[in-house]
């Protein structure tokens, strides 16, 4: 029953079927960098894998609705920071201060991050409880293996 709810929500709030991610080359590269940064920061801050995954989902959804001129590097980084911070606020018990997201030559003021967060929220129309494939995992593992999923399944899957 829970699973059917998940599936329904995934369809309702997911991307349309014919909507594929075709980004320009430079964005593609920037996206790879951004994902890299998100996962590195995830490890540094000790977030769950779900959190990183979720922030990438926000990132992609944002870019599918808005574009960043010429894939400006700082803008991409700011977007990554905002997405990761939003995902952390959805998933993590302990949310770090915005300051802790700073790294690698970029230093954004709290105000700026806040504005970006709001922009992401409005762009995604506040639909932040996105169903990721990870949500299905424990169910299928229990079904297929007949055992309770181990605590670290997400990291193993990644």
């Amino acid at each position, binding site marked *: 029953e*829970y699973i059917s709810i998940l599936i329904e*929500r995934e369809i*309702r*709030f997911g991307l349309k079927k014919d909507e594929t991610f075709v980004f320009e080359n430079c964005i593609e590269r920037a996206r790879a960098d951004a994902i890299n940064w998100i996962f590195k920061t995830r490890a540094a801050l000790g977030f769950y894998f779900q959190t990183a995954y979720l922030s990438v989902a926000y990132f992609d959804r944002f870019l599918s609705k808005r574009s960043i001129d010429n894939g400006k590097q700082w803008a991409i980084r700011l977007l990554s920071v905002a997405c990761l*911070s*939003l995902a*952390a*606020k*959805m998933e993590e*018990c*302990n*949310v770090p*201060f*915005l300051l802790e997201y700073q790294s690698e030559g970029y230093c954004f003021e*709290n*105000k700026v*991050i*806040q*504005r970006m*967060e*709001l922009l992401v*929220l*409005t762009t995604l*129309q*506040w*639909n*932040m*409880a996105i169903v990721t494939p990870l949500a299905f995992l424990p169910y299928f593992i229990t079904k297929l293996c007949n055992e309770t999923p181990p605590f670290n399944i997400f990291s193993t899957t990644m």
Partner: protein
Amino acid sequence: MTEENADAQSSLNLFTQLVQCKNLFGHAHATLPSNRPDNIEGIYEVMGILGEGSFGRVYRCKHIRTGEIVAIKQIDFRYDQNAVPSSLIREVSLLRELNHDNIVRLLNVLSTETYVSLVFELLDQDLGRYISRNNGVRDPWIRKPATRYYRAPEILLDSSQYSTGVDLWSVGCIFGEMVTGEPIFGTKNSFDELDAIFSPTDLSYIFADLEPQGLHLLKMLLCLDPKRRVSVEGALKHAYFNDLPDHPRSRRYRLILLLKSLPVHNHLRTKGFILKANFQDHNDPATSSNGRVPADSLENVISCTPNSLPVLYLACSK
């Protein structure tokens, strides 16, 4: 470590927690802009203030173009160190997904740099209660979940790591209330609440009318240590429910329904919900005065259960 040592250690911890707690209670709460605005983002005309709480204010507003009357909850996060507060993000993203007759509908979200306005449909009578309950539910600046009378000690002590056990504590409180007709830890503020919880009391004396099995279950529910508190499954298997009368208004029957509803709540609320009751009896002083819910009907019992994290306004209409 010897047992005695461990005990000393834990009471020391408790003391530290209490001191921290006291510091928290001493805080002044951030001031809201004192004047009410004439309009909100030029779209809604403000007609009056419906309520005020830790989160900000709720206004009664009229859509300037369509004339639609709505309630707008303004949440101010100017003083928030961490930009948009996570409770707000969780609350809104959940409300965005919910579309049900019994749930207060979130019509729109307007945001500016320092605050967000949530536009809700206005449920005349009811909204007053939604606000008053909400005030009860969240103390200023601490944002504590669960109406105070039903709050587990670990929440009152401001632990950031609490779990489903808080609901079982609440069930215990409601169970006790069903027996005596009074909230068992009904006190004026969180401090007294802790005092009441930690003062040594003999439950068997207060609940002399209760069957021994019921008393046993109550003690298991009101176990101070969340780790040793009984689980939902454990409680449902308790001998107290062995010969269940099928009278739907009997205490045991209501209690078992309440327990069974918890996993549903937890499921909804892994991401955060609070249930809100839609009481038909608006004249009942007990429900209208202090936001407390009398445990005298099933709907009420279920609706005043426990909650953690942000908010779902779910109206359980009869």
